[in-house]
C-alpha cells in the first residue's frame, strides 16, 4: 500500500456565509489577500516536503476560479516538488485533459517534471469537475471523448522518438509533433485517470494498463467500481489487474488518542462543509448522464456527490470509509477493512489537510500516519510488473 499526502490548497478566509452564493466560479478575488495567500502556498508546499521526509508520496490537483483550491495549475507545485523532494512519487490528479487548450504543452511539462524528479511522476489525466467547463469554456458534451483523445496523443508524443508526426483528430489538430524532452521513465510515466460511477470508464482505464482512482466515495460504490473492473478483466480474458492499479482518496486524520483524531478530522471536514456552489454550476448540459441531468432538471436530484454524502454526517463518513480517522491501530484496521470490502487497492491518497488547519496539527497527523500506520500496511496489496515496483522507481532519485 502506497500512502500519499494531499491538500487542496484551500483559501479558508471566506466572507460571511450569507454574503455569497458560491465558493466556486463567481466569488470575487477581492476576498483573496495575497499577503496571507503567499504564506499559505508556502505552508502547503512545506507539507509536501515533510511528506517526502516521512516516506509518504505527494498528490497534487488543480481547480480554477475557486476558493476551494488555489492550485490553478498543478504542474507548478509539481515542478517545485520535483526539485525539492527526493523520494516521494509525485502524482498529479490530474491534468484536466478535457479542458486543455494545448495537450502537447502538457506532454512537454510532464516530461520535464519526470526528468527533473528522476522519474518520480505519476501522470493523471482527468475529465474535470463540471465547474471547470465554465472556467475553461470547454464544451460539456465532449469531455469524455476529449479526455481519451488527449491521453492517447500524449502517450504517442512521449513514445515517438523518430522525429515529427502529424495529428488531425476529432478534437485536436497538431502539426509536426516532436516532444522534447522524452520522459525519464520508459516507455512513459504511469498514467492515471479518475472516475465516478461510470464503470465503462474504469474498465477502459484498467484494460489499458493505467491506474484508476476514486475520491470520497462510500465503500459500496468503491467496491462496485473496483470489483466491476476486475470482473470485466476476467470476463474478457485480460490479465488480472494488480491492486496498485486502484487508488482511493478518503479524508484522513491520525491522533495519539481517539479524541485527538476526532478533533483533527473536524478540520479536514471543512472540505465537505465548505463547498457551497450554485446548482447550475454542477450540471452543465451533457456533462452528466442524460438520466442524471433529467433528474436534476426536474428536481429529483440536487446534484453533486459531496452534497449527497454531506447530509449524512460524520458517522456515515466513517462507517463508509469516506473518512478514516482514529488512533494508528484503528486507522490500520479501517484501511484493512476497506481493502477487503472493495476487493483490494494499492494507493491510499490521504486528504490530511483542509480549511484553516495549521501546519503543526497537519504535520502531527501526517507523522503518525507515516510512522505508526504505514509500517503496518506497507505489504498490503499486490503490485504491477508493467512499470516495475514503485519503490524502485522512486529510488532513482536517491542515487
Amino acid at each position, binding site marked *: 500500500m502506497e500512502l500519499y499526502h494531499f491538500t487542496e490548497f484551500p483559501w479558508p478566509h471566506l466572507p460571511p456565509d450569507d454574503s455569497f452564493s458560491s465558493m466556486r466560479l463567481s466569488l470575487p478575488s477581492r476576498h483573496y489577500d495575497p499577503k496571507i495567500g503567499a504564506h499559505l502556498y508556502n505552508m502547503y508546499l512545506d507539507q509536501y516536503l515533510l511528506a517526502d521526509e516521512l516516506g509518504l508520496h505527494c498528490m497534487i490537483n488543480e481547480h480554477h476560479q475557486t476558493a476551494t483550491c488555489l492550485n490553478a495549475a498543478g504542474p507548478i507545485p509539481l515542478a517545485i516538488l520535483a526539485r525539492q523532494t527526493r523520494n516521494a512519487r509525485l502524482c498529479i490528479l490530474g491534468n484536466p485533459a478535457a479542458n486543455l487548450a494545448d495537450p502537447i504543452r502538457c506532454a512537454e511539462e510532464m516530461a520535464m517534471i519526470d526528468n527533473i524528479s528522476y522519474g518520480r511522476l505519476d501522470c493523471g489525466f482527468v475529465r474535470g469537475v463540471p465547474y471547470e467547463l465554465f472556467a475553461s469554456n470547454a*464544451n460539456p*458534451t465532449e469531455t469524455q471523448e476529449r479526455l481519451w483523445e488527449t491521453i492517447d496523443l500524449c502517450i504517442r508524443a512521449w513514445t515517438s522518438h523518430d522525429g515529427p508526426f502529424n495529428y488531425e483528430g476529432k478534437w485536436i489538430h497538431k502539426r509536426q509533433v516532436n516532444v522534447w524532452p522524452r520522459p525519464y521513465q520508459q516507455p512513459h510515466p504511469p498514467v492515471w485517470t479518475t472516475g465516478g460511477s461510470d464503470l465503462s470508464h474504469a474498465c477502459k482505464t484498467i484494460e489499458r494498463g493505467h491506474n484508476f482512482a476514486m475520491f470520497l466515495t462510500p465503500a459500496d460504490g468503491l467496491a462496485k467500481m473496483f470489483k466491476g473492473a476486475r470482473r470485466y478483466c476476467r470476463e474478457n480474458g485480460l490479465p488480472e489487474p494488480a491492486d496498485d492499479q486502484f487508488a482511493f482518496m478518503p479524508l484522513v486524520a491520525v491522533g495519539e488518542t481517539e479524541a485527538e483524531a476526532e478533533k483533527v478530522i473536524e478540520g479536514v471536514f471543512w472540505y465537505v462543509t465548505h463547498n457551497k456552489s450554485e*446548482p447550475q*454550476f454542477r450540471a*452543465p*448540459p*451533457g456533462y452528466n448522464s442524460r438520466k442524471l441531468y*433529467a*433528474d436534476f*432538471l426536474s428536481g429529483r436530484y440536487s446534484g453533486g456527490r459531496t452534497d449527497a454524502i454531506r447530509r449524512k454526517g460524520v458517522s456515515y463518513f466513517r462507517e463508509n470509509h469516506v473518512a478514516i480517522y482514529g488512533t494508528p491501530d484503528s486507522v490500520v484496521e479501517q484501511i484493512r477493512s476497506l481493502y477487503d470490502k472493495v476487493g483490494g487497492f494499492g494507493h491510499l491518497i490521504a486528504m490530511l489537510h483542509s480549511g484553516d488547519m495549521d501546519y503543526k496539527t497537519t504535520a502531527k497527523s501526517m507523522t503518525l500516519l507515516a510512522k505508526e500506520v504505514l509500517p503496518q500496511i506497507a505489504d498490503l496489496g499486490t503490485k504491477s510488473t508493467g512499470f516495475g515496483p514503485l519503490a524502485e522507481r522512486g529510488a532513482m532519485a536517491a542515487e
Partner: protein
Amino acid sequence: MERQRETVELPAARIEVERIGSGPPLVLLQSAEAYEARLDLVDRLARTHEVFLPWAPGYGGSPLPGDVRTIDDVAYIYLDLIERYDLHEIALVGCSLGGWIAAEMATKTCERLSRLVLVDALGAKFGGAYDRDIEDIYFLSFDKVKAIRFADPRRDPLDDMTALGEDEAMQVARHRETTARLCWDPYFHNPALKNRLHRISAPTLVLWGEEDRFVRPEYGRAYAERIPDSRFVSIAGAGHYPHIEQPDATLSAVFSFLNGGKG
C-alpha cells in the same frame, strides 16, 4: 388540424418532419426549447400555408449523428431537406435558435425562399470582445434564465419542471444536451455570420420581443441593419418568445409581412 409525421433520409442526417395544412410552403424552424411544435401558432399558420416543421438532429425524433457539431452543419442539412421536398417560394420562419439556422441557410442561398422571418434570432456577434451580446443561460440560475427570457416568467411552457414526467424530462435533457453541443462555444453564434448577412436577398422581417433580455432588441436592430431588404418590428409585452407571450400581435405581423405588407 391533422399532422402528418414523416422521416426524411438525407446524406448527413435522418430528419423527422411534421406537415400540417395546405397552401404555399412555410418552413418553421423551432427554438432550442422546441416549444413551437406544441403551440396553437402552428395550426394558425397552417390555415393559409402548408407548414413543414422539421426537428433538427438531436431534437424530437431526429437522431444526432456524431459528426453534426455546428449550426452550420444543421443549416446544410435543412438546405438538403428543402431540395428533397423540391419546395419553392418558401416562407422560412425561424424562432431563436431556429432563427439562427434560418439566417445561416439564407446567407448560403435564397434561391428557394420567398420571404424570411427571424423571431428573436440568435447566431451573430455584433458587440465587442467584452460585450455579452447573448446572456449566459448556462451560468445563471434557472429562475434568472426564466426572468430574462419572458416578460412574464409564468408564461414559460416549462414553468414547472417538477411537473415533468420522466420521459418528458429525458426529452428536455436531450434537447439541452444537443443545444450545448452545437452552441456552447462560440456561444450561440457563428463569428462569420455577421459578415455574411448582406447576402440575404429575400425580403426579411426581423421580429423582436420588446422585453427580451436574453438577446436585446438592439441586437435585433443590428441584425436587420445588415440584411438589405429587411424591416424590424418589435412586439410589446413579450420577451424572447413573442409568439408565446403575444401570439396575436406576432401572427398579425407575420401574416401582414407574408401577404406582401411591411410586417
